[in-house]
């Protein structure tokens, strides 16, 4: 009897702590939806990294931490060397998230990770176009293509494709009209996404890009 109570309690504790962890992640994701500045994202990155440490088997906390770092990289794109620590940390986190996914059965999740991976490589290009560009620019494209292949309907991948089309000079394949079209498409796809723990960011980014057309 005693044993039963103890094991029952133990199971309960386990469930509770798992539940608590889920709530932690949900809370953090909800907060992330409101993040706008470098400071916001830096604080969120810390929070996700902490959750990642306590949930080593879950790809999501690492994925979100990496996304925060990628966002910081994009926000600091005129800041050169300041980006580097974020890019480096983001890269390790994204790789960690990738390693936690099943390459055969979790293609959609992988597409999310590769999208962030592409952003992280692009953030390295911002450090110094001339020295980091030749190496990380093509890598960013490669990850974006991989993400597209795994899931052509991911609105975040479409957003990133729009970003590249917008920021690449025409001569090297840039296309501002196509960029607008892609960003609009991505935004539309994001209209009715739920706000659970699964990746659903992109609205802010799309709006940011589209605001340049006004």
């Amino acid at each position, binding site marked *: 009897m005693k044993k039963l109570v103890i094991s029952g309690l133990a199971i309960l504790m386990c469930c509770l702590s798992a539940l608590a962890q889920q709530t932690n992640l949900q809370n953090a994701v909800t907060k992330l939806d409101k993040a706008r500045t470098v400071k916001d994202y830096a604080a969120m990155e810390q929070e996700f990294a902490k959750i990642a440490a306590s949930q080593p088997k879950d790809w999501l906390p690492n994925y979100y931490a990496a996304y925060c770092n990628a966002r910081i990289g994009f926000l600091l794109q005129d*800041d050169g*060397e300041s980006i580097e*620590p974020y890019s480096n940390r983001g890269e390790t986190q994204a790789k960690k998230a990738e390693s936690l996914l099943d390459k055969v059965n979790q293609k959609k999740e992988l597409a999310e990770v590769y999208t962030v991976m592409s952003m992280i490589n692009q953030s390295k290009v911002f*450090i110094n*176009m*001339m*020295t980091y560009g030749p190496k990380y620019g093509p890598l960013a494209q490669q990850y974006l293509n991989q993400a597209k292949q795994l899931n052509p309907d991911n609105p975040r991948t479409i957003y990133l494709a729009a970003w590249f089309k917008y920021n*690449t*000079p025409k001569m090297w394949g*840039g296309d501002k009209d196509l960029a607008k079209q892609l960003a609009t498409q991505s935004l539309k796809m994001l209209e009715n996404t739920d706000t659970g723990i699964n990746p659903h960011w992109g609205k802010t980014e799309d709006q940011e890009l589209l605001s340049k057309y006004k």
Partner: protein
Amino acid sequence: MKTHIIKYIAVAFLFLLAPRFVFSQCRISGTVKNNNGEAIPFASILLKATGEGVKTDTTGTFNLSTNAKGKQLLLVTSVGYKSFRKEIALADSSIYLDIVLLQSDAQSLHEVIISAGSFEASDKAKGASLTAIDAFTVAGSNADVALALRSLPGSQQIGEADGLFVRGGTGDETKQFIDGTLVKNPNYPAVPGLQQYARVNPILFNGILFSTGGYSALYGQAMSSALILESVDLPAKSSAYFSVFTANLGAGIQELAKNKKSSYGVTLRYSNQAWYNSIISQRINYFSGPEYLEGDANFRIKTGKTGMLKFYTNWNTSNVGMRNPDIDSAALRSTYQVKGMNSYNNLSYRDYLNDDWKLEAGVAYSYSRINTIQNLTDADGQTINLPNYPFNEKNNHRIINNDFAQARLVFTLMFPHNQALRFGAEHFYSHDHGISNDSTIALTDNLTAAFAEGDIYLANNLAVKVGVRTEHSSLLNKWVIAPRASLAYRLNDGGQFNFAYGIFYQEPQNDFLYQTTDLNFSSATHYVLNYTKKAHNRFFRIEAYYKQYKDLIKTEPVISNDGKGYARGIELFFRDKKTFKNLDYWISYTYLNTKRDFLDYPGEIQPNFATPHTATVAIKKNLQDINTYVNISYAFATGRPYYDIRYDNASNASRIYDQGTTKNYSVLNLQVAHLMSLFKSWKQKPFSGFSVGVNNLLGTNPLFGYNYSANGDIKMPLTLPARRYYYAGFFMSFGINRTSDILDNNNN
């Protein structure tokens, strides 16, 4: 006692057998912590060879049992930390390890890198640090490294001579090195009053260290400045290019092997100014050239995992002949023709012998032949011989051949936390032979140097570099010892203070050694204090220095080492890539206070190649929407002194007969380049573009000084050969986008 011996023997026996016989499992246990002593949970511990691995628990402890024996590589990794590797010897016992992991970027980002006295432009540049291409693509630099670096603080705006005049030093006090070996003749043979260009093609380099003082003990024989160039390893892709400019043609290929382990390349350039000079009138009347032909070739082979073998050869010829009114007689003409031939060859090898030792070796051989003909002619070009001074010194013929060879070996022993000990030796062989009018010239020198240098991190934010270099010249038959030291202290906000000290020796120029070898090394002692801050795509630097010259060469009354001098100054540099979108600019200011007594100077005076104030601006604007780049550079300098110094027979000494200061120097250079896509249907779409530019756009008439007639009655201004220099051309490259080699490519 006896039992002890038996125990030892037994242990030794077991140890010997261990690799062959597996008798039991070995247990590796321990903890993984960060440098604050906090446990790191979920760090992975991996035996590289067998793939066996475990993770630490929440208290940072781990336990790993393995059947592996002998030397094994243990790898410890955790997110956010630098990976840790250690070779462990597994025997029939358990091992306990306390492992400390360092935070990955927090550490590497704030590393202190000693930078007093130097500008680094490399392919590792971040933010607003310079890249090699940034430096090369300053408008008006004519693909000449030395000219490009004049937009950085420390050097003077000299237009009448070659080389870099740094901090009160002559052009001869700056030396260039490629992959460790000296480039004996970086420029085409000197022509009086006319700047000659570099022989070395800058696009071959991805790293430049421009030291204006206090450089490393690994280099020597440059009293003022060292320009240390590092060549590209393997190119990213195979490529080919050609370019057609007003006075130059160029073409080259670079082929990367399929296995990406080796490459070779060849380039060829030809330049002839005659056609250009027939359209744009020149102040100088050329009867031959100026004409330059140069070719270079290279191969690079990756040997093993970490080895790199590189070969570079450069071959060129030049021909410049001019005929102008003679300064001492308006009726006569003075001709000057110099024909040069030069070959530079460099073979270098570097490899990591193991995790701790690195080896760098290099051999270089160069040959140069300079044929100088100076004649006094009548208006029809017939040579005239007149018996009296100064005309009796105006017909000269000189051929100088120089063989130069260098061998160099450097070992580096690496310690944890980027500390290192470097040591090595090098030998320079130089042999001149030739004729000067009727006399023969022969001069052989063997210079041997040994050096050692240590990088020591005294604290996380404090690093020192201490070195010593000793040199022996067989010609001078003298030993010298040159101590070098530098220190860097990093502040928490990313700013850094640097200090450097060093003594730098240099042998007298051969022109003096032809006359006597009873001379000493000249020397300069440098003290450099600097503050730099790099943040948010901006780079600020301020540097102050004091330099003391000793034993400079005097030519009057007899050749001796009785010269001396000093230089002191403050320099500022600011680069900003952030404030204006797609616009990159830097500004520099150089203050120089220098006096020296050398050559025929009657005492310590401000030399004619030094001015107190110099300011430069370099602007690079990328007009992304129209694929156009605008490149502007501007230099301003206050006037330089000029002198008419002659030997006064009455007082048996040198005397200044006339002196003054030139007007201010102000030169603006502009370059516009436009990229195009041509032949879009081709499978390998080439990158094409054209570039047009004007040097000295404002058409100022910069005055560098005067040439005086022998009696001092006539002075002729030294200025640019033409007010403006125009160029326009087209280039096309295949394989990779090499436009960035020609201009600053700032886009994605």
